[in-house]
């Protein structure tokens, strides 16, 4: 009973960060379930992937999430992520596990540095701009309370990063949100909150076949814990959106950079 309650609380934390920053939450939930509660890594990853889908569903369907998520951009990037995930399954046979972890850690650290370097950069255009392109949009900016426009830049780069994120999600067993959100925000001209919501939508679709795979391999065997984590995540996602609309983009970027640096340190020194 206490374990279930603990998992539910952990789910609240993962859901909040998932909705705020577009991360799947696996990066926090898996070590917590595995190291703190002693749940085997495969079972922990299965529960974590189910919670990724829960966050994604909440973002895709709630009015708060739909306000920010760009469905068209999500669909275009999703194709690259899915192809990347399939390629990752093939690459898995040829790359050593430690090498994969170091590649992931190095990338996360690089992205954290870029994020901090571009802390004050805002990807918003004047609201009077009429042409936002096929993959751009308009969204209310809680920092200023005004409607702002944004336009997608460097689509091939965005597709490449999402493709790599798909590969990494297969290789390292984590969602690609840690790469997709900073890349969309720092290089592709997408505002932070839009990048986070769009990434959450992408991650849910990528996680779906993985959850089925884990179930078929007999790793999704703790339904009560999975249910507790999902309920926690759904509550946390709501809280995450509430917090996200009340803190500045600068604060969100700093939080993201700190998390990325922490993830890099975990893979460099503690694995």
């Amino acid at each position, binding site marked *: *009973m206490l374990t*279930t309650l603990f998992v539910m609380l952990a789910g609240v934390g993962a859901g909040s960060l998932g909705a705020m920053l577009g991360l799947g939450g696996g990066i926090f939930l898996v070590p917590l379930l595995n190291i703190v509660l002693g749940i085997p890594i495969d079972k922990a990853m299965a529960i974590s992937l*189910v919670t990724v*889908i*829960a966050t*994604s*569903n*909440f973002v*895709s*369907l709630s009015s708060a999430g739909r306000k920010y998520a760009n*469905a*068209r951009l*999500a*669909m*275009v990037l*999703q*194709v690259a992520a*899915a*192809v990347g*995930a*399939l390629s990752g399954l093939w690459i898995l046979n040829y790359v050593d596990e430690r090498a994969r972890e170091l590649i992931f850690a190095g990338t996360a650290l690089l992205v954290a540095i870029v994020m901090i370097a571009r802390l004050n950069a805002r990807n918003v255009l004047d609201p009077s701009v009429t042409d936002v392109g*096929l993959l751009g949009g308009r969204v209310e900016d809680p920092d200023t309370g005004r409607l702002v426009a944004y336009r997608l830049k460097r689509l091939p780069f965005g597709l490449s990063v999402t493709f790599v994120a798909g590969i990494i999600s297969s290789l390292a067993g984590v969602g690609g949100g840690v790469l997709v959100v900073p890349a969309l925000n720092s290089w592709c001209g997408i505002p932070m909150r839009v990048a986070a919501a769009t990434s959450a*939508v992408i991650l*849910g*679709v990528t*996680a*779906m*076949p993985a*959850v*089925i*795979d884990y179930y*078929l*391999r007999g790793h*999704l065997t703790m*339904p*009560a814990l*999975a*249910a*507790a984590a*999902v*309920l926690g995540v*759904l509550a946390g996602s709501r809280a995450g959106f509430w917090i996200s609309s009340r803190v500045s983009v600068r604060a969100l970027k700093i939080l993201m950079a700190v998390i990325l640096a922490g993830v890099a340190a975990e893979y460099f020194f503690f694995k």
Partner: protein
Amino acid sequence: MSTITIAARLRSSLRIALAATSACLGMGLVMWFLVSGPAQAVATAMIWAGLALLVLIPALNVVAVLLDEWSTRPRAFAWAAAGVLLLLVVSTAYKIWKSGFFLGAVRL
């Protein structure tokens, strides 16, 4: 009925499905702790039903995007959504086939 109307209805249904998921999981979890014996099987079934519905929602959401975009020209985004759906179906079918799930069913 236009594809946009169908997409809007599908999306409303998905919102209800997400609420149903929470209800199934919540009630199942409460029952899991309060009851024992054969009734616990009902609690387990409710939790599995909730999880199955949860996992199905992203695919149905892609269908909603596909229907939404079908009415716009050019249909590039509709084709992107169709591509995502195809990749989803192919990768899921491949995983099920590789796991020998159907072979097990045939043996049974």
